[in-house]
Every structure is written in C-alpha cells, then in structure tokens.
C-alpha cells in the first residue's frame, strides 16, 4: 500500500536496501562456491591421477601411449590395449544404442497409445536404475554363453577370416577389414563385441529417456502442421522432431557415452580381460576401467603408478570425446544459420 510505504522514515528504507544488497552478495558467493566445488573436484581428480601416474609417465614417456605391453613380470607397461578396448566397446555400444533409443523415444512420444506411454516410460527409468553388476552377471552367465553357442559361430563362419571349414566367405574376402574384425579362434563369448552389446543394453535407458523427454517438448502446432501437409510419421520424426531437439538429443547420447566409457563392473565380467591387442571384435580385450578394477588392489610401485596414469588417460579420453561433441554441436548450429 503506497500510503503506508510513504509513511516509513527514509533511513529504514535505506537500511533495508543495504541489507538486501548484502544478502544478494552473500547469495551470489554461495552460488559461486557451489559451482567452484565442481571445478575443484574435477581439477583435483585429474591432478591426483596425473600426480599418481608421474612415475609411469617419467619411466616410459610417450612409449606409455603407444606401447601395447602390460607386463608386470618385467615391469613394462603401455596403455594401447586398454585405451583401444575402452573406445571400441563404447563405440559399439553407441552404434547399437542410438538407433534403438531413437525408436523407443519416437514410439513413446508419437506412436504409442496414451495408456501405454506412462508404464513403458517408468519401466525405462527403472532399467536405468539397475546396478551395473547385475548387467555384468547377466552378461557372464546368460548372454556370453548364448553368444558363444549361437551367434559367434555364424559370425566367424560367414564374416570372419578364420572360419571352421577354412573356406572364406564372400564378405570376408572382398570387404576390407570385415574378415579381420570377425575372425577369432577363441571358442567363448567374452569379447569386445559382447562387452559393447552389454554396454548398449545398459545405456539404452539413459539415452531413450532423455530423447523421450525432449521429444515431448516439440510444439504440437509444428507436428500437426506437418501432418496436415501430408507428412508421414517418419517424416515428422526425422524432419520436425529431431531437428527441433537436436542439441538435447546429442546431449543425451553423450550422457550415455560417458557412462559407457567409465563403466567398470559389467565390462570386467564380459570383456575377457586379455591384455592383447587384436583387430578382431570377437577376441577378448581389456578396458581402462576394467584393468584398474582388476589390478589395483594387488599393484605396487610402477604398476600402481601405471594404473594411475591409465586413470588419467580415461580423463583425457572422456574430455576429448566431450570436446568433439561440443564442436559438433557448434558446427550444427552454424549450419542452421542462427
């Protein structure tokens, strides 16, 4: 009430505005502190792993990055095998998970009947909450044996360069790399491909729930206009929904990728843990996280330092991946001409 207001002495008003300004400053400092904690923990973790790995870096120098040896007996270590394993399994996971998640999200936001949407959406969120060890157990006890008995023989015989009967298939002979990628004479499931598939199952809930949420933000007006012009559901999804939500979708994909890169337990169970570099996706391998989980408790001296150095490399790999994502987004924004 203005009349009342005017009745207040001027110095009280001034005090109040001083107090407000002070509170405002305090609040701003608090917020800044919260944000700085993130930065400090990031730098702290990166710094700690780099410091822990200094012995390894100084002992091997650049060799650490290009050597595929991991030989505790002779104290020689290199990062190529685990770094390759980490990137390969995560890429396979993305290749499988992204199209499937897109399908799930489009179905739930565009196609599914209303009564089905909420239960399926909650089911996806529940899936996202399952601890990774469960996926690991499932991979080891159920999926890897199934893969070894039913899928792997077909892959090695029809695509690989080491088929059982010795006769190369057309694909193995004529398409470059395919023979190498699918050739294997290990008779078991645990491999880079299986780890990628298990990771895909793990990250599908993440990616698809993000996609579903952002697809729902697309204004009905836009979609209905497109339908009115005769677009099919596919055209609406691909030409209206996806471009509208592109940056959020890419954000969701990288959330999934981040999880795949750092996943430890599930991968340790199904990757086979062999410290050998092999071109084949059907051979066992190792990832950075699985190597650390496997060896850290018993490691001493240079081996421990090398594991810390690996942890630092995982930081670097994740950082590079995020950087690429940022650049990609910027490129896309520029193309849109905004």
């Amino acid at each position, binding site marked *: 009430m203005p009349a009342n207001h005017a009745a207040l002495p001027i110095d009280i008003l001034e005090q109040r505005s001083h107090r407000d300004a002070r509170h405002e400053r305090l609040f701003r400092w608090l917020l800044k502190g919260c944000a700085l904690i993130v930065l400090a923990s990031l730098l702290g973790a990166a710094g700690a792993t780099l410091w822990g790995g200094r012995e390894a870096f100084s002992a091997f120098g650049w060799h650490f990055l290009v050597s595929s*040896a*991991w*030989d*505790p*007996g*002779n104290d020689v270590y290199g990062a190529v095998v685990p770094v390759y394993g980490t990137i390969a399994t995560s890429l396979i996971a993305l290749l499988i998970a992204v199209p499937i998640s897109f399908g799930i999200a489009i179905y739930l936001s565009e196609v599914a009947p209303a009564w089905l949407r909420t239960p399926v959406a909650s089911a996806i969120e529940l899936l996202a909450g399952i601890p990774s060890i469960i996926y690991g157990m499932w991979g*080891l*006890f159920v999926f*890897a*044996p199934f893969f*070894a008995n039913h899928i792997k023989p077909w892959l090695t015989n029809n695509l690989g360069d080491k088929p059982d009967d010795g006769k190369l298939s057309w694909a193995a002979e004529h398409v470059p790399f395919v023979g190498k990628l699918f050739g294997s*004479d*290990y*008779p*078991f*499931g*645990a491999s880079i491909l299986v780890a990628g598939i298990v990771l895909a199952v793990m990250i599908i809930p993440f990616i698809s729930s993000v996609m579903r949420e952002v697809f729902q933000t697309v204004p009905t007006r836009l979609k209905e206009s497109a339908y009115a012009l005769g677009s099919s559901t596919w055209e609406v999804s691909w030409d209206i929904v996806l471009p509208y939500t592109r940056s959020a979708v890419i954000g969701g994909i990288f959330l999934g990728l981040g999880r795949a890169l750092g996943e430890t337990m599930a991968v*340790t*169970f199904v990757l*086979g*843990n*062999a*410290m050998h570099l092999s071109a084949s996706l059907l051979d*066992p391998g190792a990832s950075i996280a*699985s190597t650390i*989980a*496997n*060896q*850290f*408790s*018993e*490691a*001493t001296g240079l*081996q421990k330092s090398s594991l810390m150095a690996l942890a630092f490399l995982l930081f670097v790999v994740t950082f590079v991946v995020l950087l690429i994502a940022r650049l990609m987004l910027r490129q896309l924004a520029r193309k849109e001409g905004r």
Partner: protein
Amino acid sequence: MLTSRKYLTRSARFAAVAAIAVASTFGVAAQATDITGAGSSFVYPVMSKWSAAYAEKTGNHLNYQSVGSGAGIAQIKEGTIDFGASDAPMKAEDLQKYGLGQFPIVVGGIVPVVNITGVQADQIKLDGVTLADIFLGKITNWNDPKIAALNAGLTLPAGKITVVHRSDGSGTSFNFTNYLSKVNPEWASKVKFGTAVEWPTGVGGKGNEGVSQYVRQIKGSIGYVEYAYAVKNKLAWVDLKNASGNFMKPSADAFAAAAATADWASAKDFNLIMTNAPGAQAWPITATTWMIMYKTPKNAGNSKVAFDFFKYALENGQKAASDLDYVPLPAPLVSKIEAYWASEYKH
C-alpha cells in the same frame, strides 16, 4: 482406534528403550577389544569363521577386510591396522626396514582344472613343464604328443586348448606362476611370477569364481583355482607330478605334506614359497598366507589380542579350516611359529 494407536506408540517407545538398553549392553561387551586386519582374500572365508568362533569365546571382535594382499601390506606399513595378511611373503630387508615379522597361518592348494568332454576329475595327468607349456601357448591342442605321453590309456579328443587365468591380481596367480617358474625355465625368463603377469595366451576371469565360470563355459579350457572352488563347482581337476616324481591327486593330505616337507628350517621369517615342495606325497602347488605384524607394536593391547586370536586359530581352528577345504598347519610348524612369536615379538 485412538486408544489402540496410543497403545502402539507406547509399546513402540518401550521397544525402543529396550533396544537401546540391549545395544548398550552389547556395546560394553564389544568394547573388550576390537582388532583390525586387512589383506589377502584367500584367507577371508576361514578368517571370518575363526573370528566368529573367537568372538563367541572371548568377546573380542576381529574385523578382517579382504582388500587384497598388496593393500594389506600397504596398510600395515602405514600402521593403520593391527595385522596385515599377504599371499606373498615380504622380503627380509623390507621386514627389517619396517620392524615387521611374518608367519604362515593356514595352507591351501591350487589345482589346475579342465573342461574336456568325457574327462572326469583325476583322469588326466600333467607335469609342471607341460602345464607351463600349455600356459605359454606352446601346446595348443589336447591331442598333443607331450600330453599323450603322460596319459597312457586315456585318449584325449583333438580340440583347441583355451587357457583361463585370473584377470585380477591375486595370491592364487602368485603361487601358480611361481610354480611354473620353478619348473619351466622359459616361463621363468619370459613371464616370471607375481600376483599379475603378462599372460602369453588366454582369457582372464575375475576371481576364483570368474575362472570357474569360464572353465565351465568353455569346452577345451584349462584354468587354475583354489581347491575349495574346484570342489564346490565340481570341476575336473588335473593330477600333477610333484618334485619327487609322483603323480598326486589334490587332497588335504597332499597339501599338508607339502607344508610339512617344505624347508622351513632355513627360511628366515618363514620367507619360503612352498610350491614344488620336495615331499614324496606333496601337492606341488600348495600355498599359504602370511600374517604380518609389528615386532614392537604401536598398540600393545590390540597386538596381544591378535596373538591370542592366532594362537586360538592355530590350536583350535583346525576343524573350521578343514570344513572350508583349507589345511591346518602341521604341528611341528605350529610349534615353530609359536617359538618365533616368543623370540621375535615383544608382547
């Protein structure tokens, strides 16, 4: 409704008071002494059984963390625990440097296990050199003449051999690779031995459980696990030729024979890895776990309780150990350890 709720509240309050009273009673009992140890996962099952029995008898609690031998040694060096437990003995100079002493506590056997169609436990025989050649990737098929030469009368099917090893650093791997190094010069020079090595071939399973699982899944595989896991998972184990040339079945007696015939007399601080033990009836890959303690403890009270616990374990814990497929130390070794306590430790 109202009265019943009131009643419920009152009874709940009474229950809470009672619970606090009970808890504080136990709290007082628990304050007797809590000792902490950490290290080897190999001894974890028997440690927890012993500590439960010991707590029942004396009221003193043992908190044993199965964090791995390396971590156990690191923690005892920092003095954050009362004793460490390691599957590999510490070197004499390290013990000297930190003022530590060590002694074995229990014995266990490590057995090679196979998955070959039609082959049961105790049917296939190997010697150390051949076993190492398989793990080196030099023998790649079950019908190899070197394997056939050791197995007259058993026809092994042709089939690729898949080696299964531990992916994690472990005392089991330490003792297994130590044995291979002792019997096969090529292994000794190329791969050496340790809790983790660069395996020339094969796939890695996490823990004894992981190796057992892979061996069960993969036809034509060979791996190595602690005896208890081979028994529990009904895996087909291999008979091994020991240092005196006899083919042995893995058994508690054979593990005990290895512990009894190992040359403890000339091993300072029990620094002896007893693989390839000389006894006629000894199982060649027998292992023990060492307890590591300060000779002049920082917390004398805790240290005293720890020794009391170990005494209890060595003298009364045999049954608990054999129930879990460990082997109690033979009596002469126990008296040797007790003499070591008296002469080396201040407590």
